[in-house]
């Protein structure tokens, strides 16, 4: 065990854990965050995604000791009680079925839009490809992203 300092959603935490512990378990079990969830443990599905310094990171395969920089989780997306536009678009499009994977969908989309605010449909598909959903909400998720990009969810631009 050793002391590890983490900056999460604007707050600094110090936890006493085995430094090889995947970040996911520290966020969930020590910091009581619920956004990142366990999906595969091998970095394949994105359910555990967090954003660190602008990059989508799979927290299930990231040792806590390797983390540098500010961590943003799903809980950290809204500011001053205002939902992030992506979160609002998710509600407007009703983009979830069970919703378990939507953490990965939303955070992967945020990283995409932070880097490229006007992606084409093809770019959306490619960027989102690693975010898996077993309820198959992909069509609605893409519509929600387009809603943020274009102000409407209509498909077909920039294919």
């Amino acid at each position, binding site marked *: 065990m050793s002391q590890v300092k983490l900056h999460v959603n604007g707050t600094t935490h110090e936890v006493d854990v085995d430094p090889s512990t*995947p970040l996911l*378990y520290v966020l969930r*079990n020590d910091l009581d965050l619920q956004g990142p969830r366990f999906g595969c443990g091998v970095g394949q599905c994105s359910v555990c995604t967090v954003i660190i310094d602008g990059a989508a990171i799979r927290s299930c395969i990231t040792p806590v000791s390797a983390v540098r920089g500010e961590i943003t989780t799903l809980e950290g997306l809204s500011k001053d009680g205002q939902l992030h536009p992506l979160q609002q678009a998710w509600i407007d499009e009703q983009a979830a079925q069970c919703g378990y994977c939507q953490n990965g969908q939303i955070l992967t989309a945020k990283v995409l839009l932070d880097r490229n605010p006007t992606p084409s449909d093809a770019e959306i598909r490619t960027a989102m490809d690693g975010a*898996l*959903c077993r*309820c198959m909400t*992909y069509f609605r998720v893409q519509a929600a992203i387009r809603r943020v990009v274009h102000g409407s969810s209509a498909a077909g631009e920039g294919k």
Partner: protein
Amino acid sequence: VSITLRLPKRVEEAIAGLDASSRRSFLKASGALVFSLGVGTLPGAEVPAERPAAAGPWPDPDHLQLDTWIVLHPDNTATFFVGKTDGGQGTGTAFRQLMCDELDIAYDNTRLVMGCTDITPDQGGSGGSDALERDGWPMRRVAAEARRVLLELGGQHLGVPVELLAVSNATIAMKSDASRKVTYAELVGGKRFNVALSGRNVDATTGMAAVKPVNELRVVGQSLKRYDIPAKVDGSQKWAVDMKLPGMVHARNVRPPLAGATLQGIDESSVADVPGFLRVVSRGNYVAVVCEREEQAIRAARQLKVECTRPEVAPFPASGELFNYMRAATPSSTSEPQLLGDPAAALAGAAHVIEAEYEVPFQGHTAIGPAHALADPSDGLMTIYSNDMKAYGLRNGVARFLGMPREKVRVVYMEGPQVYGRTAADDAGFEAAFLASELGRPVRVQWSRDEETAWDTKGPPYVFKLRGGLDAQGKVVALEYDACAADHNHLGYNEPDTVLIAQLMGRRPERPARGNAETPSVMYAIANRRTTTRVVPLPMPWETPLRTGNLRDPNGPQVTFAFESFIDELAAAAKADPVQFRVDMLAGAREDAVFRKARSLAVMEAAAKAYGWDTRQSPQPRSAALHGDTLSGRGIAYTYRSNTVAATIAEVEVNRRTGRVWVRRLVCAHDCGLVINPEGLRHTVECGMLHALSRALWEEVQFDTEKVTSVDWASYPTLRHTDTPEAIDIVLVNGDPNPGRPDLAPYGAGEGSHKPLIAAVANAIHDATGVRLRRPPFRKERVLAALEAANA
């Protein structure tokens, strides 16, 4: 006992927004639900002393008491309690809509609690897409009864006959003088109804009031947004995976390294160096490790050394040999052949006879979040926090498994990853309860990805053989259907002697379940038919990762793939348009009690119209299909699932250099009767199709003769964003042959669109390429090989 600590978060959320006094009233009322206090008390009587809702034991909530279903609060809001769960299709929102309409209360002034065995009536949880078709009825009737009772009380309060009163949003007023009014809360808020209901079982629960005619429903039919989505996108939702309790420890199962292996020994010293290690628990071939922290349990499970011996006989053939094995295997059960007319004679006299075989592999649930549960053994009771869709079955099963009285066990249903049938959530609930009882403290069990993918229950594989005869005019005169499923020992839900832990412990029923091989669900009129089905066993029925259990429409996608592919083959042989060919066969069908013939014709027509279907035979000429390296085509398939009817058209692009299939567009015409929430329905229909598209393009459980080798998303690929169609059109046909009639019933929607999709894709691939693929998944290697073999 702290009430707030013990109440599930969702129940807390359900009462959030109320002030402290009304909240206490809620707790009083919900306590009263559980402990039937009122004997001979009048409606509206004060609730006796406060009792915590969560303290056990927990007798079954009495479904014949109105108070079990509906609690009115002093702020004129209501909480509904129903014995269902929501797998993500928004059924919770639909339940509220139904009940709001009957109670006459605004949707926003209501909350819903689902699937907690101690405070919601046992409606069995979810399954079979029957949420609205079956379970919505008692909800409607009890809400109507509550309105009736309130109107009577309101009449007494205002001193006028009920006939002179009207209700609007939980306020009763005189029709002639709206200023003379009384609210529901003033009459019953924070108090009990004390109204008995009748009905021989929970599904038949009713009061004296009739439900409203459909044309008077106002909340029903609106596309209200799902109440559960906001918390799922801002991270505030508390899921079953988030549930934590003081003193909770973490467990991981250690599965047999080879199927059917017998445990010989465990070297506990192999995990002695794992910090936080608490115990290895083993019974028979079941092994689990328990540690203080989650990452410690993961490490201990990986590190634990176990010694096993191989089974004497290979538990199953390798996946590459499965279908040959199934063809040759001695059936464990065979159905009586169903015969109509004289198919042998009709085939002998047919102008063309077509024959084809189809295969469908094992496919899995493989939930995005592996199975999990938390069990709390405090106070000699057992509470299981689980996303299992059948909370009551889990409660009953665990009670029997542990030998505890039923009322000492409860299941608190919480949100979880998708539950399309008999998933490993059942297994994890039993494991958590067993381990919690062994350790005497709360234990959380979490399956790993490889465990979920390899050991979760699977949809049964099938081999089909079909023969059909056409007369000289291209009309189908005979059809023979033979289906064989490797579905021996098909698992039920939450059975204490078939859940995985019971199997591994050696606790088994006397004989395995018979399993099933299904027949097609179509309305076609074919005069001469022979239908045969059989189930074959794999060599090892128990302790196997190739366990079959219900997976979304358990046999439908397989059967409909084969049957509707074959209908397309007949249409092609008849040089007929695939839609017209089907319409002609439907035209001669007899109508049934739920108008499935008329509704089948209606969805077929609506799908063709929405797609812009041009009448022609398949495959389409190469000159029209080919653009660059891409061959394009369209295909239709149709079926019904229970009383719901669906026709689906897929438009595909097949890359003839790579073999990649992209379904560019999907159209589904869907008729499930009365539509409660159109937008919620559309989304469910859409995702049901895409789930089946995943099964069409990607999903196949692979195994060698010792173990399942599909263990993650690389070895068990699933549909992805890049596979998604660019257009999906859904037509809600609502094809009542008598539109506007007052009694149109709602039918299920969780599986109807899932069922015909694989066939529609196969038919579209044939239309595009001229090549018939008779075995999903249509992965590019297989497609390319088929194209090359056909020189396409």
